[in-house]
């Protein structure tokens, strides 16, 4: 197996992009990543996307985007793993390069969620859950997370406002990200007054429905070193995927993300690091409760203690473990199938020293974690900036 490097990154702004189609979003992110890498073609294109068939009536998406982007002839396929589609496509790209089957691979994540009515988009997102035994009973994606959050509050004796640091950090960090969907400061008072979506989850616990695309270019590490264009090289030190029961109700312990535990701990072993070595963590705060469970299962906080960690200030940009340094899902936005690639693009920006106003002082080892459904598919990537 060969080491894999990320040599190009690109992204579109995130938001309600009514003047941008699915194919244009993919095009813009891919061309930005190709220009950043200085390449004119590639061996393969892997597209992370969840809902193109349901919300745009468009399957066969990867071939469409390859065609539209001027990459006709290359291998192309869409990878779907609900909200983890982006990182799942990244994993396929890494496998292709590491195995020697491809030398230059483009991975993009793209999602268009705002062309449809809210009830249609909500039903589409619920497809991440078990259609016969969760969605058929009227469960929505937010409702499943709300039931996990309520049980967490019950088991650990915490209150709703204890979750406020997660969206507050996300919104604070998004202020310095020009591509983020929201640029507004969130206060604890505003959090407490936010309208309920599915209690105890309110609108400030919930990542927004939006459009966006992000892309990366992958190459064998040794080849990338020779190719070097004066940018810090980023090595993919670990790329791991794991699964849990699809339905929340089938878990013995719905407060434990087993797939986050498996994928993060395998990733630590592969990268030869421990949680203490991680400089910052781009985690999957689709809902505040998922941020807490991700930190606990990945070994950053004991069970039931993630909210204390958040309250301590450790997760802010000047803390010991900054999270979601460009706004996370909550404030950068969560174009579902694109999110996993946004996380990687933002981690590379930090590792290269290109994060602008949000640049961390110490950014050498990054971790990203992308969650599909309510914890059913979880991918962890560890990226190392090489000197």
């Amino acid at each position, binding site marked *: 197996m060969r080491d894999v490097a990320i040599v190009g990154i690109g992204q579109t702004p995130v938001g309600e992009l009514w003047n941008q189609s699915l194919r244009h979003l993919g095009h813009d992110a891919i061309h930005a990543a190709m220009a950043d890498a200085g390449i004119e073609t590639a061996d393969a294109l892997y597209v992370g996307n969840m809902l193109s068939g349901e919300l745009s009536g468009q399957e066969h998406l990867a071939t469409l985007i390859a065609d539209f982007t001027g990459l006709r002839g290359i291998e192309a396929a869409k990878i779907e793993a609900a909200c983890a589609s982006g990182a799942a496509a990244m994993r396929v790209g890494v496998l292709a390069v590491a195995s020697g089957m491809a030398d230059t691979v483009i991975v993009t994540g793209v999602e268009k969620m705002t062309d449809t009515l809210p009830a249609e988009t909500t*039903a589409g997102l619920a497809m991440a859950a078990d259609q016969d035994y969760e969605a058929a009973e009227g469960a929505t994606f937010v409702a499943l997370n709300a039931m996990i959050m309520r049980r967490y509050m019950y088991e650990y004796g915490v209150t709703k406002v204890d979750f406020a640091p997660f969206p507050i950090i996300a919104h604070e960090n998004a202020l310095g990200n020009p591509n983020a969907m929201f640029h507004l400061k969130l206060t604890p008072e505003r959090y407490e007054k936010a309208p309920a979506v599915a209690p105890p989850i309110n609108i400030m616990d919930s990542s927004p429905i939006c459009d966006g695309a992000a892309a990366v270019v992958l190459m064998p590490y040794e080849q990338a070193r020779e190719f070097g264009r004066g940018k810090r090289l980023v090595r993919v030190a670990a790329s791991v995927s794991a699964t849990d029961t699809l339905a929340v109700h089938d878990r013995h312990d719905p407060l434990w993300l087993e797939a986050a535990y498996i994928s993060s701990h395998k990733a630590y072993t592969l990268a030869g690091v421990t949680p203490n070595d991680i400089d910052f963590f781009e985690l999957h705060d689709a809902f505040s409760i998922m941020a807490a469970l991700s930190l606990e299962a990945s070994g950053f906080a004991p069970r039931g203690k993630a909210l204390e960690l958040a309250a301590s200030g450790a997760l802010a940009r000047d803390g010991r473990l900054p999270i979601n340094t460009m706004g996370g899902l909550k404030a950068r936005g969560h174009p579902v199938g694109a999110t996993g690639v946004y996380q990687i693009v933002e981690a590379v920006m930090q590792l290269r020293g290109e994060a602008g106003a949000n640049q961390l002082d110490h950014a050498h080892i990054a971790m990203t974690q992308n969650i599909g459904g309510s914890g059913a598919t979880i991918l962890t990537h560890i990226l190392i900036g090489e000197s």
Partner: protein
Amino acid sequence: MHIARNWRIKKQRYSLHGEICHHCGAHVFPPRDVCPECAKPAYDPAQLSGLGEVYSFTTVYNAPEGFQTQAPYPLALIKLEEGPMLTAQLTDVDPDRVEIGMEVEMVTRKLSVEGDEGLINYGYKFRPRMAA
């Protein structure tokens, strides 16, 4: 329209028809022919009692298509007495009185409507347990 799809799972929808694993004794719901506890084959049918308690709950305000006329509605994770957990709406209940640990029992109700001319799907919901 999903006529065959709903027909295939009518036994579990209408009567909580599950399975029991004769290797480890675990009850299995919904039936999947593989025991989720020990991963061995589990084909023996078992009728679940329909009695359980609320493990957690919420209220759905932003309902998906097919459920909009019912919104807002209470939704819960129900831990059945036999062990399995399932997701179901609560019915015949004051939403303010729902709490974790509340004892509930299964009833059959209308679940969703597939448009003006489509199927009406029936299945299990749970209500506060009546005194025996």
